């Protein structure tokens, strides 16, 4: 089976800073994969390169076998990305935003699926509200919804729960778990390590653009008996 995402020797520099420093990594189809690391580790940079928002200095990334540069249209169709930054287009309502996003992916009548996403993200009552009038957490949920309009087989969530309240976090994870159960590959970054521990079947720990550890959550935990993922994380970072 081809990997959902295949990352080979990627290097990305910003001036003298090596944000991605020769990192290689395969993520299999159907995984719930955690990409963890301290601020500035290069997680968002890696996701940007995967999504075609950033260009690599060298190395390559494939989504289900499609190179994200040479075969960008196919790769992007297979990918749904929730960006870390809380961005929105102030001109439109929630439903307009989602219809437009569907259109960009070539989908015309998508309201059944849009309604379903809105329901699971508890946004139904805000469907016709302008984006400007939403709270921060609600805007974040719309970002999640936007990433899902085209039912992408690979879903990337860059800190989707930052600023989202407890109840909704539970709701969101239930929804994402269901998507994972239906076969969608999930790639997640978060600084809430209990979340990662509970959700992810495999975890990569990265720092300064390099991979420090890559193993199943079970194995990572077993290597440090009695420790929580947070402790494992801290020990790995200090090495």
């Amino acid at each position: 089976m081809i990997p959902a995402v295949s990352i080979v020797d990627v290097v990305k520099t910003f001036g003298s800073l090596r944000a991605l420093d020769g990192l290689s990594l395969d993520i299999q189809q159907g995984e719930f994969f955690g990409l963890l690391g301290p601020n500035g580790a290069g997680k968002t940079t890696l996701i940007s390169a995967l999504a075609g928002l950033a260009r690599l200095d060298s190395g390559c990334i494939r989504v289900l076998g499609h190179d994200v540069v040479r075969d960008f249209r196919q790769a992007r169709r297979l990918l749904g990305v929730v960006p870390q930054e809380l961005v929105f287009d102030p001109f439109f309502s929630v439903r307009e935003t989602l219809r437009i996003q569907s259109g960009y992916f070539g989908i015309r009548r998508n309201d059944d699926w849009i309604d379903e996403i809105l329901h699971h993200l508890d946004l139904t009552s805000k469907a016709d509200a302008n984006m400007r009038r939403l709270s921060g957490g609600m805007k974040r949920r719309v970002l999640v919804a936007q990433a899902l309009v085209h039912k992408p087989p690979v879903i990337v969530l860059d800190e989707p729960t930052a600023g989202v309240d407890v109840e909704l976090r539970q709701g969101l994870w239930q929804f994402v778990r269901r998507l994972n159960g239906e076969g969608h590959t999930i790639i997640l970054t978060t600084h809430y390590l209990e979340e990662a521990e509970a959700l992810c079947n495999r975890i990569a720990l990265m720092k300064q653009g390099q991979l420090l550890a890559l193993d199943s959550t079970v194995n990572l935990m077993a290597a440090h008996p009695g420790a929580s993922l947070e402790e494992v994380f801290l020990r790995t970072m200090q090495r």
Partner: protein
Amino acid sequence: MIGFWTLFYKEVLRFWKVAFQTVAAPVLTAMLYLMIFGHVLEDHVRVHGIGYTSFLIPGLVMMQVLQNAFANSSSSLIQAKITGSIVFVLLPPLPYSSFFIAYVLAAMLRGIMVGVGVLLVTVWFVDLQVVAPGWVLLFAVLSGALFGALGMIAGIWVEKFDQLAAFQNFLIMPLTMLSGVFYSIYTLPTFWQRLSHYNPVFYMIDGFRYGFFGVSDVSPVHSLAVVASCFALTSLLTLALLKRGWKLRT
């Protein structure tokens, strides 16, 4: 194709939702120019044997087409860049060509809507003839598209609104003002006349005016050739920049 139409629709909706600012306001500005200059100069100036107010109208219309086409694509892009919402069009599998055509068409549409608005209002003031509507339409479409594409380049290039304002004040305004909107370039001293021939906007306005009056400073075919070449070059440049992801993808 759906991707392209959606982007075009979004770009049109973006200005149409604030049409008071983006369409009505420029029409009013043009009216003020017309009333003031027309009133002051009507009895003193005739160009090519045409009354000054009549002469002025096509120039003003074209000036608004150009400025609004430019403003539309440039402000849309820079706004999206500053707010970060540009990712919504960078993440989907939209081909560069769709991206380009959608922005340019929407910009041209706004330019032409303002232009038509100015014309409709001026009909109350002056009995305007249109000798060759084909030329009028052709020059409006091509010039609007050209400035829409220039607006794309500017919007991709600059990082802040004040840089965009500089672009507008130091390039777009002088080019349009010094192009014969308010005069025939043959009333200028030789040096300025020669210089005007290097200003593409001069050909846009001259060709456009030919469509109304059937007279112009240079032949409309010559003007068309200049404008079409400029459009082709600008389009190629814009497409190349989009393909490289210049300033859009880090």
